[in-house]
């Protein structure tokens, strides 16, 4: 296909004129149906009219615009509903805690006394998401490398399908599995080991016998964001032209050197995009996290302690929030989550696009 000879064509100057664009073409004036030629009559009877065409076009544009509409509507509703909390706490909501006058302990979230601070939830969201990334990123890149560069052809499709299937399992089923299988497993085996080995750091304190907490949330989140990261990493790795691989191999590189220099280095921007996309998913993940994180609005140094994320506190309290301020504070958390995930996703998409744009057609 590439080597086929292209016959030379001589084009006269007149043919080089740009073709008239569709909207510039002069449409024939409306003809009376009776006078029109048989062909034209046939076409007119089949609905060939500018009005129908433009109407259809406008309808499709409206459908496309509905996507903007949704974003604007979500933003509007959340802003309106969070006005009260914004007016009451201002920016303090995101970084200040109340102090209990009796015990001198920080007081973060107390709906009964209308004390609301987002701190423990921001902390919980960040800790659980970064824990998940820490576990998921190396594994996801490993899987992507294996599937694109090493895997025997027979295994590739089933394995790719399996990782995709991981993405299709609903959050609530991950949560169910985590509650009955993962958490007991962590409680009996991993946590005692972590406490014994790393207890001195203070990050793994032996004061939570339930097995729920940040570690459990991080592990289940890692399992959930793995397929997203690995499938996007695979996509950007396949977009790297074969010539890059061949060039490195031709210099006598081993396979791993070829992958490192020829593939990973070329795809690194896209891989960063994939990781950020995984982060976006982890930040907003709700059900599975709610079921295993323990749901207490406090900040502990220990990763084995109970915690709470922005999404999990919304899931737990939104339907039952009675006071307006409570509802408004929760909505403000949701608005913050909305803005953060939009920014994170936009960055990730731009990075992935930068690598994959037009790539498949460039390879041969």
């Amino acid at each position, binding site marked *: 296909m590439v080597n086929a000879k292209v016959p030379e064509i001589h084009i006269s100057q007149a043919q080089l004129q740009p073709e008239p664009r569709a909207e510039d073409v002069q449409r024939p004036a409306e003809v009376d149906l009776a006078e029109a030629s048989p062909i034209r009559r*046939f*076409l007119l009877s*089949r*609905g*060939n*009219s500018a009005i129908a*065409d433009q*109407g259809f*076009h406008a309808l*499709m544009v409206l*459908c*496309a615009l*509905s*996507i*903007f509409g*949704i*974003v604007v509507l*979500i933003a509007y509703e*959340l802003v309106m*509903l969070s006005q009260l909390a914004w007016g009451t706490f201002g920016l303090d909501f995101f970084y200040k805690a109340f102090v209990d006058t009796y015990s001198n302990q920080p007081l973060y979230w107390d709906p009964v006394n209308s004390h609301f601070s987002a701190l423990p939830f921001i902390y919980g969201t960040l800790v659980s998401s970064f824990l998940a990334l820490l576990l998921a990123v*190396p*594994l996801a890149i*490993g899987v992507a*490398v*294996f599937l694109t560069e*090493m895997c025997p052809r027979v295994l590739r*499709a089933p*394995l790719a399908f399996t990782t*995709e*299937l991981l993405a299709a*399992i*609903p*959050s*609530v*089923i991950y949560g*169910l*599995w985590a509650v*009955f*299988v993962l958490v007991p497993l962590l409680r009996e085996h991993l946590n005692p080991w972590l406490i014994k080995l790393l207890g001195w750091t203070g990050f793994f304190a032996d004061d939570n016998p339930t097995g729920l907490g940040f570690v459990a949330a991080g592990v289940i989140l890692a*399992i959930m964001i793995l397929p997203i990261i*690995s499938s996007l990493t695979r996509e950007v790795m396949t977009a790297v032209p074969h010539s890059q691989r061949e060039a490195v191999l031709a210099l006598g590189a*081993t*396979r*791993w*050197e070829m992958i490192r220099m020829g593939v990973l280095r070329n795809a690194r921007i896209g891989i960063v995009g994939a990781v950020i*996309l995984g982060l976006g998913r982890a*930040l*907003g993940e*709700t*059900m599975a996290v709610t*079921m295993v994180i323990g749901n207490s609005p406090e900040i502990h140094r220990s990763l084995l302690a109970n915690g709470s994320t922005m*999404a999990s506190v919304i*899931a737990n309290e*939104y*339907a039952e929030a009675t006071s307006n301020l409570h509802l408004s504070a*929760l909505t403000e958390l*949701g608005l913050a*989550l909305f803005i953060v*995930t939009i920014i994170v*996703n936009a960055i990730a998409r731009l990075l992935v696009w930068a690598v994959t744009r037009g790539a498949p057609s460039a390879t041969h």
Partner: protein
Amino acid sequence: MQLNNEHKLQTRIRALTDVAATGLAVLSTVLVVAPLVAIFVYLVYRGASSLNLDFFTQIPKPVGESGGGMANAIVGSGVLLGLASLIGVPLGIGGGIYLAEFGRGTKLANAVRFTADVLNGVPSIVMGMAVLAMVVHPEGHFSAFSGGVALGIMMIPTVCRTSEEMLLMVPNAVREAALALGVPNWRSVLAITVRTASPGIITGCMLAFARVAGETAPLIFTAFGNSNWSTSLNEPIAALPLQIYVYAISPYDDWHRLAWAGALVLIVLIVLAVSLVRYVTSRGVLKGAS
């Protein structure tokens, strides 16, 4: 001589690094596949032993009585998903048609495509909050309608982007042939292009369908759940994922059993849908397309 030895050592190290890297990649693949296998095996083991005819025909029994099923939740999920499809599928396909047929290369199309991708990453719980403010608050009560709206909104970006991709696979010659015969553009799009790409578009819709079928978070404060029979759009309605969540965090063994059975039913439905999608797309969406 020494140079040669050094060279040999280096080659050996490089070969070992290669083996180690391969080993790590294989290990990570095993580690990723393991939880999936673990989840499925456990799900089938726990779910199948709890699944019986009652599960599909009975509504939940009060606490303390054994037995009961999730018939109302299955029907409720059907109602919610039907409503969601009514909202999400036409708008999504319309958006996809715009992106692939009218807006190719325009700034508006790029903006729509980008927004759709970003919207896809917005947490479902945020959608639920917006719908609560939009539908539930004015109405004054939780309802099946609001749940359907929340799920429908979530379907739009997925359906839009997959429809676009499928429509782009239709060769231009097909469009040109239709237009050359004097078929009006709107007709050429609907009867020729969309029809040619319809297997792909349908699978895209099923993918979106499978995705929202398991959504729980936005339903907590829209559809709310219901332990009795209800198919009214104006009342709270039960949904399968919601019921699984409520039962999973309850302290009763009998409810745990039902949660596993529900999870098995849900996962079987979703895996069937995803496999079908996989089968159709691997077979080549468009017969004879280059």
